[in-house]
């Protein structure tokens, strides 16, 4: 696959060159990581460690700049580690960034491809869309959020989409509803969809996949499994696809959305909820502006 070993280059610092809130609770972070930027392909991810006592957390690479040697990730603050990250600022250095990890997304000329993104996936789906567009597909992108003000990355997506459809739960955009409602809407208007890609929370992946099942549209979903090492050793990200055991980190993150054992994925994902919640009680809560300004 690659001639260089996929590992951390200790000679360089993973400096944050841009840190910005893309939408409430969604952050865009651009990190200096030249080797990763040179190697990355759409659909791949990195695992990073925010600080010395931090844990390893996987993030989809949402864009990269080979010339400047940077990669972009979008993340939501959902736990202690992402809280720490949300409190970092430009110039801060991450302890470690490992990648690119996982298999790249399959890119070919399929015809009409539908891409659905929610939460971090609104940012993460972009490289796949771009590659599909370059491969000559008609690209329809739909993004979902609870409300209009939570949508972001619109300019990027608009630049590669033949059609960009925004849907919101509260109806603050033209379409009220979610990705699965949009799929139905497209099918109703006679659109022929040859392939679908989804990226977002597992719940959204599941219900969106259900929407493409009746038409047997080949559906690829980027699973969110708990991960530790990201190289297939620990087995933490084990999931069941087509009845077979797979590891999201090395066999994925993309799988056939119609073949995933969702219940198992949800159950495994919820396993550490207690510890995750409790961790807040004694780990660095100070996301303090004052501290940052000092």
């Amino acid at each position: 696959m690659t001639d260089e070993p996929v590992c951390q280059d200790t000679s360089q610092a993973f400096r944050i060159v841009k840190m910005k809130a893309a939408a409430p609770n969604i952050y865009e972070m651009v990190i200096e990581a030249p080797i990763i930027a040179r190697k990355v392909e759409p659909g791949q991810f990195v695992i990073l460690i925010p600080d010395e006592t931090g844990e390893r957390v996987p993030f989809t690479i949402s864009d990269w700049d080979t010339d400047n040697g940077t990669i972009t990730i979008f993340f939501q603050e959902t736990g202690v580690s992402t809280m720490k990250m949300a409190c970092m600022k430009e110039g801060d250095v991450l302890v470690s960034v490992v990648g690119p990890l996982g298999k790249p997304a399959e890119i070919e000329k399929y015809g009409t491809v539908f891409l659905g993104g929610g939460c971090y996936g609104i940012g993460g789906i972009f490289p796949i869309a771009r590659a599909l567009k370059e491969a000559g597909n008609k690209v329809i992108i739909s993004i979902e959020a609870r409300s209009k003000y939570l949508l972001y990355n619109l300019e990027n997506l608009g630049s590669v989409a033949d059609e960009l459809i925004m849907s919101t739960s509260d109806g603050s955009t033209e379409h009220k509803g979610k990705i699965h409602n949009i799929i139905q809407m497209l099918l109703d208007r006679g659109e022929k969809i040859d392939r679908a890609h989804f990226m977002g929370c597992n719940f959204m992946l599941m219900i969106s996949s259900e929407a493409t099942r009746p038409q047997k549209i080949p559906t690829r979903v980027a699973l969110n499994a708990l991960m530790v090492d990201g190289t297939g050793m620990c087995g933490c990200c084990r999931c069941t696809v087509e009845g077979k055991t797979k590891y999201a980190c090395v066999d994925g993150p993309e799988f056939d959305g119609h073949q995933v054992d969702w219940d198992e994925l949800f159950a495994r994902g919820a396993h550490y909820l207690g510890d995750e919640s409790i961790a807040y009680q004694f780990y660095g809560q100070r996301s303090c502006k004052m501290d940052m300004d000092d």
Partner: protein
Amino acid sequence: MKIDGKDVEFKEGQTVLEVATDAGIYIPTLCVHKDLPNFGACRLCLVKIEGMRGFPPACTTPAKDDMVVTTEDDELRSIRRNVVELLLSEHPNACIVCDDKKLCEQYRACPMKAGQITGCQLCPNKEICDLREVVEYLGIDKVDFEFEYRDVEVERCDPFFDRDYNLCILCGRCVRVCKDIRGMGVIAFTKRGHETRINTSFGKTHLEIGCRFCGACVDVCPTGALSARGTKWHGKLDSEVQTVCGLCNINCGIVAGVKWGKLVETTPDHDSYTNGQLCVLGRFCISGMVNHPLRIRYPQVRKDDWLIPVDWEEALGAVVEGLKKYEPREMAFIISQDVSNEAAFMMLQLAAKVGVEKIALAPSSGDQKAYDGGNAFGVSGLCQAAGYTPDELMTPEDVARMAGRGKIKAVYTTQDVVNIDDAEFLVIQDVYNSHSLKSAAAVLPVQSFMESEASVTSFDGVTREMKHASEPYARSRPDWEITRDILKAFEGQDYASLGDVRAAADAELAKVAKPDAQGTTSELNWFPKHIRELGDPPSKYRGMDLTVLIDDLRVLKEGRK
């Protein structure tokens, strides 16, 4: 008077809303809170009263003889609906109007742990959203306004709680509880008109402005605008246990929230003698303390200079064997002020059995109003009942000094003691890994006051019960049980159950005169007043400095300096 055609009785001074509530008639409201003075801001409890102009609010209108009240009709419903829609036009409302609400809730049973709440399942108010209750009562499933997100930055600079004024509905509960109940007035309404916000003066942080972080504002907030940062993301609780706090001798009533068998939060108990008010320690620190990774997990015994985890039998065996090597006069027992009556009683029983006369106890201030250890009154009372005058009792420091001089060789302690390392045989029966562990011969992990049943005697002389709330941490056991087993090994009296011990301890306590502080506690808001006058209780538990355990507490204490 008549409400909705129903004859109802009322007491002088009651409001129409109170009378209706007593009569089982629901009138929606958001700004009313039973502990707070009424405010009349949300305009949901508007009713019609014959002979009165317009739509008076039920929450502030006093009930009068022969009043005829209508609580619901088309006009009232229409006002309420419009008011709630107006509120929702700037309060994230996807959780209310989303088509996939039901399915979503089924699959995301636990809220995500987001820093900024944007509606949906991300709201930390969990299952008890007052706003949602009202929405459901009014049957609102769509909001006829374009949603306008205020997009103000979430205030996360302070310890313990976040303030997200994007969710605030300006009910003013926090302002009222801070001013009227806690007597602080840290927060107030600022700016005017549509720009009105709750804030501190000049927008300073709560830390700068002298907030005591009692969390009363968080507890009354009907939305997720104010939320306890460390304890907001567990979702619906499995169980709630009414118990008391063991961090100082006031022993405030708290409700322990338990999920996954763990203590996930502590909130004030409104049925207790502290009337639903707590201090920063009781409100925000206990769950962090109880779940802290610094807890001692296993019984340990020193072998070849290493503390090795062993099973209880072996550990207790080693303790008994070790103690037996020493003369009683070479031994000292240190009883923490924070242990229960049962634990202290067992320690004294063991001392009597073994013949140990050197009992050490951190001295109480003797002042009923001052803060002492969680069971200072009980422990000192038991010592007194056992025949120790205050002069005969040593202090933990005395023990450390005598150990340093070789006068004391074996020490059995239930708290962390500074400089105790010189004791030859040191048994530590404690909650946290402390400095003293490095010279301990045996370490016995103890359950915290949230994990085992026990009783404590508060500063007012009343004995209060602590309940079993969360599952014991790792292999820890209750104090009294450990000491009982040691006593058994010394062929002392066997106490089969906690009940037996409690009965015996109570009998002992009954021998000594009880202090009486009823006068103090009869006032409604005596506890907030107590805190205002004396400051927060000292942040120590069994000799352990809580600021080491709880980072935010450290920030608070340092910020105060």
